[in-house]
């Protein structure tokens, strides 16, 4: 009789729809921690994605505008002084090259090969620096993309263990007793996938864009290096 009454109350208390907040609140504390962590991971993934996306977009746009003006500029030093305040990766690469060129050609004797090598090295370093700045936080996307499903799975396994334990305690294997616990447990895997899928997509997409941005900077650096190299011969 008590089992029947319990069952009846369980049936009447069943949620009528899939409410994530309700699922979270009903879950075991370990599952709650897992879900909370995965939610934070999802927020971090999306924040990084959106921020890097905006950053890359604006950087590419400004580099394009800057490079067009740079090649058209008559007085490079004045142009550089004008553009210094702005946050432009190409400008920083060019500034590194100019600074290195100034230092290398400031003395009496000019070692042209050495200067070329130093120029190339300095500007490559600047380019790598800029690319690294962009891709620095993408590794978090990769980490979340690969680990979040496992974390969610851990929450699910724990939740299912917990609900089996509860079934054993109640000595009742009716679906009304089993189902809510398993639904709460599976919610952890759902959140894990919810965090992981955008992370993987964003990581691939952003890595590709950062690579493209880096090649663009390399092309600019090579072209500037060629210009400076020609300058030395003159």
């Amino acid at each position: 009789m008590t089992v029947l009454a319990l069952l009846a109350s369980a049936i009447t208390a069943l949620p009528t729809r899939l409410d994530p907040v309700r699922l979270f609140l009903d879950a075991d504390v370990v599952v709650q921690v897992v879900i909370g962590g995965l939610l934070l991971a999802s927020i971090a993934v999306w924040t990084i994605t959106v921020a890097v996306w905006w950053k890359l977009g604006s950087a590419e746009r400004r580099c394009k505008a800057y490079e067009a003006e740079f090649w058209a500029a008559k007085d490079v030093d004045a142009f550089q002084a004008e553009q210094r305040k702005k946050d432009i990766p190409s400008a920083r690469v060019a500034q590194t090259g100019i600074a290195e060129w100034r230092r290398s050609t400031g003395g009496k004797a000019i070692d042209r090969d050495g200067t070329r090598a130093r120029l190339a090295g300095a500007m490559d370093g600047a380019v790598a620096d800029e690319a690294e700045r962009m891709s620095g936080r993408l590794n978090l996307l990769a980490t979340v993309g690969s680990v979040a499903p496992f974390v969610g799975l851990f929450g699910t396994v724990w939740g299912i263990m917990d609900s089996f334990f509860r079934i054993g305690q109640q000595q009742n294997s009716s679906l009304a007793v089993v189902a809510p616990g398993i639904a709460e447990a599976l919610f952890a895997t759902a959140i894990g996938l919810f965090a992981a899928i955008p992370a993987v997509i964003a990581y691939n997409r952003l890595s590709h864009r950062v690579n493209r941005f880096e090649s663009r900077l390399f092309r600019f650096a090579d072209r500037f290096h060629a210009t400076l190299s020609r300058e030395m011969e003159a």
Partner: protein
Amino acid sequence: MRTGFFREDVPALVIVVAAHAALFAALSLFGKTAPPPPIPPRMQVTISSEVAPTSTSPEPAAMPAPDIALTKGEPAPVPMPIVKPAPLIEPAPEPVPVPKPVLVVRPAPAPVKRAIQPVKPAPPIKRTARAKPVPAKLAPAKPAPAAKPAPQAKPAQKPVAHFATPGDDRPRRRPDAPVGASMVGSDFLKGIPGSDSKGAAKTPPAAAIGPAIKASLAGAIADQLQPHWTAPQGVDAENLVTVLAWDLNADGTLAGAPRVVSQSGITDANRTQAARHAEMAVRAVRLAAPFKLPAQYYAAWKRVAGFRFDRNLSE
């Protein structure tokens, strides 16, 4: 600075947190609403080994018998109103209940009354009495009810019941009074089941005890015995079956000691347990008394003729 925060981080974080919150709010507010599963009605199933060939419940739909039976030797009422009035004196009252004002002249009450009287005394009187104050309006419609009761005995019951209602102060005759040739009063079926008139008995007839009731009584006895019954343990002890019989008083207490009717399932292995099995069964009955059983079925449970105590009862 290399992996430091971007300027874009703050608005991105705000947007992303807002989007997550919106997503979960939307999921919890407008989530797929599954209709609540209907709770299946729980029914008590009793397994009865008996099959009732006849219903034990009264039939409310059964039509009451006619008040007055035909007397032997009387002419059949059906042909009379049709044959006699039709050709001779006046237009016959149409047996069809459709009112036809053109064809049907209001029939004189005499022939109809004569025709009907053997069958049913009341309606002609009523009809006559009612038709007179308003001849113009009611006259065309009247032949129908007058003609209808003649061939059929069944509707004749209705006006009698109608007459019995209080407050009807129109002139009438006592429905009980024998009229015409019939000496049988309309109350001759009083007290017979199926009759619509009240009998003289003050209490309803004894409840019929069908197999369903017997099965649920057995279930109720088993329910009350179960907490007190534990089968002895041992090799082959689950095969032992003790059948007890006992008598009960009307208040559910035991009348006399329970008797062992039979024991079965005794093997060499559990022979030592058999006496104990019977003892435990008797003890269970003694502990379970007084039994709480419906008093109106006392006739069914005053003697529990044979109740099986086996392993199944304790589960």
